[in-house]
């Protein structure tokens, strides 16, 4: 499978934030979800790919070419939707279409009209008067109308009602029916990824802590529930985060079958959800007086 996007050792820092040595591939024919909390670096990563920000180091290859050198030409093949799309406030949807059309060689007027109809975009209302959901749909329609090979979507479903969200996600699935296309979209709504993503990359505080095929990731991790004795045994070394509550511990641990042999009596092993991976990975627990040394989740930056 060819990678439409390859990111290697990408770094960028400003102020107290740093995106640290990110490696990521987006294969053709897949939807890759970039998930993380607000401020994790999702938007920064997408801006770096697009060339909106210059990286401090590393490489971004788009369609096999250096994105820094050939950015202008490569952007012909990219559709971008920014978080809370801000376009020219006083322009109406058809004017926005005419405006964007003139930039792209492969603009497809029929697709644009179809999407305007599908999304029921109002044709006579200025962009500034559109609701957040309709703005997002307008931006999506613009991004999808020039036959882009790679869609970069920055939180496309945030602020959308469930019906529209589903429409948008279905549309993404429709896009990748063409095996030569791919979608990279950032979100903090893990249920969106559950529904459509083939690959998942999890960002935490600028670090890419997990990346890979969604099902493989879910199969590679386990959620262990039990008492305080969980941390006393060999399980501790395999844990990457957890939470302490009144009823005991919940730990996110690497592995599945191998863990079963390490479980103390009464402990339970469960398959985590994507939300569990995002939530528990690197989550530190408060120090319990009964434990000898304080335990902290470990957040490795390199995979």
């Amino acid at each position, binding site marked *: 499978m060819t990678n439409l996007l390859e990111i290697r050792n990408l770094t960028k820092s400003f102020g107290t934030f740093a995106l640290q040595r990110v490696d990521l591939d987006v294969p053709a024919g897949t939807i890759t979800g970039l998930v993380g909390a607000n401020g994790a670096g999702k938007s920064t990563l997408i801006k770096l790919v697009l*060339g909106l920000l210059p990286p401090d180091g590393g490489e971004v290859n788009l369609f096999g070419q250096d994105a820094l050198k050939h950015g202008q030409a490569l952007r012909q093949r*990219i559709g971008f939707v920014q978080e809370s799309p801000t376009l020219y406030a006083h322009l109406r949807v058809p004017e926005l279409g005419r405006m964007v059309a003139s930039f792209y060689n492969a603009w497809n007027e029929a697709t644009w009209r179809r999407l305007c109809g599908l999304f029921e975009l109002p044709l006579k209302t200025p962009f500034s008067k559109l609701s957040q959901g309709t703005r997002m749909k307008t931006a999506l329609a613009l991004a999808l109308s020039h036959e882009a090979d790679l869609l970069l979507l920055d939180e496309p479903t945030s602020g959308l009602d469930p019906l529209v969200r589903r429409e948008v996600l279905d549309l993404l699935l429709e896009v990748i029916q063409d095996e030569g296309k791919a979608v990279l979209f950032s979100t903090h709504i893990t249920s969106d990824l559950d529904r459509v993503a083939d690959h998942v990359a999890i960002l935490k505080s600028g670090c890419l802590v997990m990346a890979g095929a969604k099902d493989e990731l879910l199969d590679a991790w386990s959620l262990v529930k039990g008492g305080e004795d969980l941390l006393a045994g060999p399980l501790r070394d395999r844990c990457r985060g957890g939470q302490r509550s009144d009823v005991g511990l919940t730990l996110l641990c690497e592995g599945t079958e191998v863990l079963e042999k390490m479980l103390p009596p009464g402990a339970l092993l469960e398959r985590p959800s994507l939300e569990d991976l995002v939530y528990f990975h690197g989550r530190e627990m408060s120090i319990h007086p009964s434990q000898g040394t304080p335990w902290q989740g470990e957040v490795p930056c390199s995979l």
Partner: protein
Amino acid sequence: MLALMRTAWIINRRLLLQFSPWLLVYLGVVVFGQCDGDSLKMSLSLTFFATLITVIVTLQGLLLPVEDFILSLPISRAQVVGAKYLSSLLGMAAGFALPLLTGLLAHLLAPSHVHAFSAEALSIGGLAALGLAFGVFLFLPFIYQFGPTRGFTCFSLTLVAAFAACLAWKGRWGCTKALLDFGSHMLESRPFAFTVIAGVSVFGVLSLLFSIWTYRHMVAIGGHPLSFSNIRSALARSVSLRPQKF
């Protein structure tokens, strides 16, 4: 570049349509100014109209955080800057052409009531156009160096500082007199006028090159569109002269 100019046309056409009631009223004022044949009145109304249009065209895009969207399109940053210069100058040309054409039409329709623009009024208008072009060439590098909010603030502070320096140097009326003398000299002496025009053109080219160069190194100015609240906060932060970070 063509696509950017087309974009500028779509945006400005809509803007001008939105402002059309006011523009029509002001075009009426321009025609009214032609009634008594006073050259100064004609040139002032002409200049005011042209300045208004130039400001609208130049500021469009700076009032909204659309930079991320524009830069995500398949264009280079140099093209973005070049298109902004070109659209500002074309806007200025349209700003002069519209009242001139309206005035000409009004004169042709009612020659006994509306005077044609005098040669003197046109000359003064030409001087104003040169000054306006100079203003655009001075303004845009500030925007591309510091971002809309800080750039606008720095540009305004520069104008205020220049005015204050002139006041301190030449006195209260000395500045006005120096400006008028400069204009008169330009109108009287062709070589001097050509020298000034050449000087402004060179300044324009340098301004464009600087803007292109500095915009390539600019991180992002999106998220800080030009607004009064942003200007206020920029002033409150006492304007540290560094490029804006988002």
